[in-house]
């Protein structure tokens, strides 16, 4: 039985007092939730898992088309950019990062919401390792393989999923990371870890807000309900994202700092970040 139910107050449309409050509808929704959970577990044995991955059927045709076009343009630009700037060193790192992010996305961790889980999205991690363009390309590979091979995330919703998680996730994450890291003086583990944590949390919550907007624009959900609910759940998932991303980046920071796109480089602090990649 779930200890806490995720509720939204109906009068104001605001997310009500965090996740811990008890709602008058709680007993009813808890029963509903328990039944659906049991059904879900059964269904899940045979059916693909969603993530923040939007399945087919949730988004309207105009939203799918607009997001598909946007994702296509983004993919084309990413290919061009990566072709222009990719170094030999980044080539195997693209493979390893994408492989790790795919595997890590299969590890759902439980959330303290009673029968809800989350998993790494990895956009910020990819961007910290590969830079935003190659990073977005690497996670696009992950989402495309998931949609085509594993029926995870809809084909018609692929554009939206790529935009939310492979574009917003990487670019927003990367530039927030850069900004926070340079605000804290750029050098040192603390600046890097804080920047990584803030960036990965923010990228997940922002991507969830955009997914909520897409659902609302599609007429699938009410914006006043779906936006706070999605952001609320993903504020927790984002904590997991931050912990995992800081863990991986810290491990590399200590063992193989040269694998980071913006490595710690005390004596070259005046050089543009990312400009020391060939120095190995």
């Amino acid at each position, binding site marked *: 039985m779930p200890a806490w139910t*995720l509720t939204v107050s109906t009068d104001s449309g605001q997310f009500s007092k965090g996740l811990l409050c008890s709602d008058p509808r709680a007993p009813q929704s808890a029963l509903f939730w328990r039944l659906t959970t049991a059904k879900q577990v059964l269904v899940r044995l045979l059916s693909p898992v969603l993530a923040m991955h939007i399945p087919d059927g949730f988004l309207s045709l105009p939203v799918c088309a607009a997001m598909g076009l946007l994702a296509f343009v983004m993919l084309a630009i990413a290919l061009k950019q990566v072709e222009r700037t990719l170094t030999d060193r980044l080539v195997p790192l693209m493979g*390893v990062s994408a492989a790790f992010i795919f595997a890590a996305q*299969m590890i759902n961790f439980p959330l303290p919401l009673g029968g809800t889980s989350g998993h790494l999205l990895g956009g910020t991690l990819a961007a910290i390792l590969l830079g935003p363009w190659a990073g977005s390309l690497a996670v696009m590979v992950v989402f495309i393989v998931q*949609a085509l091979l594993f029926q995870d995330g809809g084909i018609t919703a692929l554009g939206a999923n790529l935009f939310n998680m492979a574009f917003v996730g990487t670019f927003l994450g990367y530039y927030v990371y850069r900004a926070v890291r340079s605000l804290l003086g750029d050098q040192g583990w603390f600046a890097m870890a804080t920047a990584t944590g803030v960036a990965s949390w923010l990228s997940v919550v922002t991507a969830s807000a955009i997914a909520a907007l897409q659902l609302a624009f599609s007429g699938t959900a009410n914006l006043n309900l779906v936006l706070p609910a999605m952001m609320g759940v993903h504020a927790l*998932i984002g904590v997991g994202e931050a912990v995992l991303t800081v863990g991986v980046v810290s491990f590399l920071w200590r063992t193989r700092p040269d694998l980071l796109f913006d490595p710690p480089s005390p004596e070259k602090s005046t050089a543009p970040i990312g*400009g020391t990649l*060939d120095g190995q």
Partner: protein
Amino acid sequence: MGSKWRWVLFGLGFALVVALVSPFASSDPDGLERVANDQGFIERETSGWASKLPFASVFSGYALRGLAEPGVAKAMAGVAGTLVVFGVAWGTGVALRRRRPERPGSPR
């Protein structure tokens, strides 16, 4: 050469280990599913076009078909997916790298 590729093997090996333990992960609905359940639009999900692709005869979601034990099926699907993603991402990188003519003076 050996040490140059050691981290690649280590990274890929670590990813494969993560894929192998995936059957032990939580099978609770995730964020979007939870919200879709709570707000009553989960039933809008359609089985989708991916189930019509030839890959659907190999994988049923994250499960390799033909294996009776669900945990083993998921682990094997995870290993296969990890290797496919690794190959496609690396291959994309190699292809893009080759398309650019070498310019000796270029900064990177």
